[in-house]
């Protein structure tokens, strides 16, 4: 029954009736649309009192519930982050890590909380880390980071904000196509770990879409943390379980490593872009490169051409390559490496880098040696009624991390140890935090926060954040429109310019003519990340949320 097609044809006929009708239609659309100027695949969500944008509906619902119970943005972000650890267990969780940027309107506080993982204190310099198994695991930071953020900047108790996550873990939830696919794809390493197998294949076979997945051990673990605080994880019962499992399986993490772990409150990196203030996640993660790239772009009048004009894409690709090269060369754990933060953020430096760009031809790439990153990351944006904002990006590195769950705890461990570089600022050292590209970012205008945004997507995180900033600030796109705009990615170490196939043909042709080799991805490809963002209209206070059709995101507001 082709009802739908019938309806579409009927509608098109009516719309096509007269040129006048079409013009009137376009006019109404432009005038009436609240912020989004173009039609989008997913609907932009608007609300007045609070909003959560996360990669999964139940995680968004957790944050919404907390906001509606009177919690602030930090309460809601922590609730959603714990919930994501349950409902996106392949991408984040207690065994992982992350970075969060907090803006508190009432206290005028802007702070980054670094809860990145760190290498164990033992000397592992002779160890081949690999991508799975116990030696791939770095000391996890999620519990410390979320508990610290809540205690310092939230208003609710740990038990209150963890309640939704505990509920989801105990009652279970329906396995999505996406989750089922990640289980199937990683089932070989998963099948080597009894504890993880019990979670994702309770009857022996991998759970498929439509089945219910539960993690009662994780519910119990979270209840213990809700009651006893982060010490349960870093010094108590869960620490014992982790250390025991490590000892039995050749891993290096000890109780001393866990006891030594601290989340670190850092000054965010700050910059400006065409009058907007950019506040992003500091080293060892990627916000500094987002700002550096935007600094370079400020030397070009992007808005004078269309968003995907040949010249503009070329400029942005050249900027990306330079930013990535600098990132590789200079960014690492600031406790172990002197990072020329001021130099990298300097407008004059950016200007000199921008001057290297030949508008008529592609320049050969410059520096080398960046670590590989992985797409098992998740971003979350929250805004509350008070104008407080949180941007939070978490990860367990690869999907399903090290493919190791700690027996009896439901905790799935990261494989961050694969992210060390062989040399340079990101070379391995005991107790050091590895570099990644995550870059949760807040944009403000005249001190009033305007946008909270972030994305997973490994190496593409930084370039995608730059594209989003340009779409919003140069091209004045709506937030959903910006998220859906065709993405592209260039890097100093890669010969190809990666693009989504929606990139205009004439742009592609011209880029080829000046030296680019093009690697084409489908129309919307998760390779380029799955962004979440919330924009607050500074005039009206209205919140507009966008979620990426490249992933199962959900924006809820009230």
């Amino acid at each position, binding site marked *: 029954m082709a009802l739908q097609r019938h309806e579409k044809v009927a509608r098109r006929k009516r719309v096509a009736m007269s040129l006048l009708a079409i013009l009137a239609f376009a006019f109404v659309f432009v005038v009436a649309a609240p912020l989004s100027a173009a039609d989008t695949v997913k609907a932009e969500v608007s609300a007045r009192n609070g909003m959560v944008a996360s990669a999964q509906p139940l995680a968004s619902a957790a944050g919404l519930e907390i906001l509606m119970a009177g919690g602030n943005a930090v309460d809601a972000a922590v609730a959603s982050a714990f919930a994501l650890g349950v409902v996106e267990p392949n991408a984040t969780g207690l065994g992982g890590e992350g970075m969060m940027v907090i803006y508190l309107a009432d206290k005028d506080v802007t702070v980054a909380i670094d809860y990145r993982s760190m290498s164990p204190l033992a000397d592992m310099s002779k160890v081949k880390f690999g991508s799975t198994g116990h030696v791939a695991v770095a000391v996890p930071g999620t519990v410390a980071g979320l508990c610290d953020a809540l205690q310092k900047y939230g208003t609710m108790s740990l038990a209150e904000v963890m309640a939704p996550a505990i509920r989801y873990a105990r009652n279970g939830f329906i396995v999505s196509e996406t989750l089922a696919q990640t289980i199937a*794809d*990683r089932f*070989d390493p998963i*099948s080597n770990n009894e504890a993880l197998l019990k979670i994702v*294949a309770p009857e*022996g*076979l991998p759970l498929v879409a439509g089945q219910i997945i539960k993690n009662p051990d994780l519910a119990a673990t979270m209840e213990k943390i809700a009651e006893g605080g982060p010490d349960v994880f870093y010094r108590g019962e869960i620490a014992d379980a982790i250390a025991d499992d490590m000892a039995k399986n050749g891993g290096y993490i000890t109780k001393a490593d866990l006891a030594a772990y601290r989340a670190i409150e850092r000054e965010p990196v700050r910059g400006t872009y065409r009058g907007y203030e950019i506040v992003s996640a500091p080293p060892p993660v990627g916000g500094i490169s987002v700002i550096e790239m935007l600094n370079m772009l400020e030397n070009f009048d992007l808005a004078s051409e269309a968003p995907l004009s040949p010249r503009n894409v070329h400029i942005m690709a050249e900027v990306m390559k330079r930013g990535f090269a600098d990132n590789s060369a200079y960014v690492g754990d600031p406790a172990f490496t002197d990072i020329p933060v001021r130099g990298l953020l300097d407008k004059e430096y950016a200007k000199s880098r921008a001057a290297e760009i030949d508008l008529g031809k592609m320049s050969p790439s410059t520096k080398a040696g960046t670590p590989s990153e992985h797409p098992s990351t998740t971003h979350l944006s929250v805004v509350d009624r008070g104008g407080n904002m949180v941007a939070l990006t978490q990860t367990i590195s690869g999907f399903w991390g090290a493919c190791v769950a700690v027996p009896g705890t439901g905790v799935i461990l990261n494989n961050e140890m694969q992210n060390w570089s062989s040399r340079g600022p990101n070379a391995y050292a005991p107790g050091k935090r590895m570099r990644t590209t995550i870059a949760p970012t807040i944009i403000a205008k005249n001190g009033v926060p305007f946008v909270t945004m972030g994305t997973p997507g490994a190496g593409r995180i930084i370039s995608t954040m730059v594209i989003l900033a340009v779409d919003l600030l140069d091209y004045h796109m709506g937030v959903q429109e910006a998220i859906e705009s065709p993405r592209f990615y260039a890097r100093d170490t890669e010969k190809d310019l990666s693009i989504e196939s929606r990139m205009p043909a004439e742009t592609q042709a011209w880029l080829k003519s000046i030296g680019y080799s093009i690697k084409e991805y489908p129309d919307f490809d998760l390779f380029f990340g799955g962004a979440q963002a919330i924009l607050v209209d500074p005039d009206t206070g209205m919140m507009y949320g966008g979620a990426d059709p490249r992933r199962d995101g959900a924006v809820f507001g009230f």
Partner: protein
Amino acid sequence: MVRKHRFVARVLSVALMAGIGVLQVCAQGTVPPSLQGSFLQPGYITSAGQTSDAAIVKVLANTRLKLGFGYDIAAKPQSIAGAKTLVLVLGASNKGLGAAGLSLEQDIERVKSVIAEAQKNGVRIISMHTGGTARRGEASNQVIELCVPVSDVVVVVEGGNNDGFFTDLCEKAGVPLVEVASISAAGNVLKSLMAQQ
């Protein structure tokens, strides 16, 4: 020669299938009596194309059915030393190939070398395809075309043979094809193929 032995088995099985009225394909889920219990322990499981379906078959065989098979998703010829039955789980997976650091061509070379080792030692081969339509496509077809003709039996879970690709290949090569409705049923077929211990 191994070839001759297998030829006789095929003639027998074709005759038998004709006898029960099914020429190329056995009635769903039924294993020809001539094959029941005809595969000897120890068995060894590997993938052809790095599909993680191999791990599912491993869990089925070892955890559920307690068959105690050896397993390496990227087994090499020496891995199957001592085995009497080789289970090839068919399907090309880009993610699997990527994780193993192999190209499809490299993995095909690996599988060829494992098959050659099996044939050299009289190891009989069960090919299994459990991934449904998701594990079909140009790359998967290459490994399927490589493995089916050298197999003693092919087991396919519903969906994977929607286009009759396995039927045609098995018919041409004279290899018995058992179609089953689910991965669980594929496990039962595997068990009935194995000799009682």
